[in-house]
């Protein structure tokens, strides 16, 4: 057993070099989401109705497709970064922690790609 403290072991090794990027990404995405999120809530709820025809026609509009695509992409990114911090703070055992981090990344990738693909399909045609 090593008598060195965790701090002693990492001193001199430098940082993992990801911290500032993670921190800054979380802030820039949050600033973008202030604009995109407010737009999304307001634009969605002011539709005349939320039936399939109305919603599809709305999403197919270029401005909507771009802003909605940005919204889901940035929200997914922000969510991935945020959930990562929560897992790192509360899951202490190494195995479950790595498993949770990887699972979160996979799920966020799936959600982001699915949402953006759905928007593109509606906007570019091909949707039933």
């Amino acid at each position, binding site marked *: *057993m090593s*008598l060195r*403290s*965790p701090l002693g072991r990492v001193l001199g090794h430098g940082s993992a070099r990801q911290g500032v990027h993670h921190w800054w990404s979380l*802030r820039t995405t*949050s*600033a973008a*989401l*202030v604009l995109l*999120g*407010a737009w999304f*809530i*307001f634009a969605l*709820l*002011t*539709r005349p*109705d*939320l*039936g*399939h*025809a109305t*919603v*599809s026609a709305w*999403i197919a509009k270029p401005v909507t497709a771009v802003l909605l695509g940005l919204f*889901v992409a940035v*929200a*997914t990114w922000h*969510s991935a970064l*945020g*959930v990562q911090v*929560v897992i790192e703070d509360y899951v202490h055992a190494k195995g479950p922690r790595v498993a949770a981090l990887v699972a979160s990344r996979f*799920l966020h990738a799936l*959600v*982001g790609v*699915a*949402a953006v*693909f*759905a*928007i593109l*399909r*509606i906007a570019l045609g091909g*949707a*039933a």
Partner: protein
Amino acid sequence: MSTRTRPLSPHLQVYRPMYTMVLSISHRITGVFQSVGLLLLAWWLVAAASGPDAYASAARLFSNPLVKLLLAGWAVAFWYHFFAGIRHLVWDAGYGFDKPAARRSGQAVVVATALASLFTLALAWRHLGGAA
């Protein structure tokens, strides 16, 4: 692990819950709650892209009273995380750290959340078909 047997500094359970403390953890809880909401949003978009039938079955789920209540919860969580997030950005810029300012900005977040949530729920009312 050697760190496990060391004495711990006083933690959550020894402190009286404070206003600012509750607001702080609420930011995390509403954030995680919205990550779950993102799943629902993606699913809704995929349903819309899959055609009227898939969309109709998604709409059926949204007409469930329990889901309506969850959606209302998401609206509140959205605005709380929105305003508390702005509060965090102001802190990150280096302002508003002293106790009275932190308490005032916390109260502003709660009031803004209440107003924006009421406005959102009023807009959503006709889409939810009345009672949530």
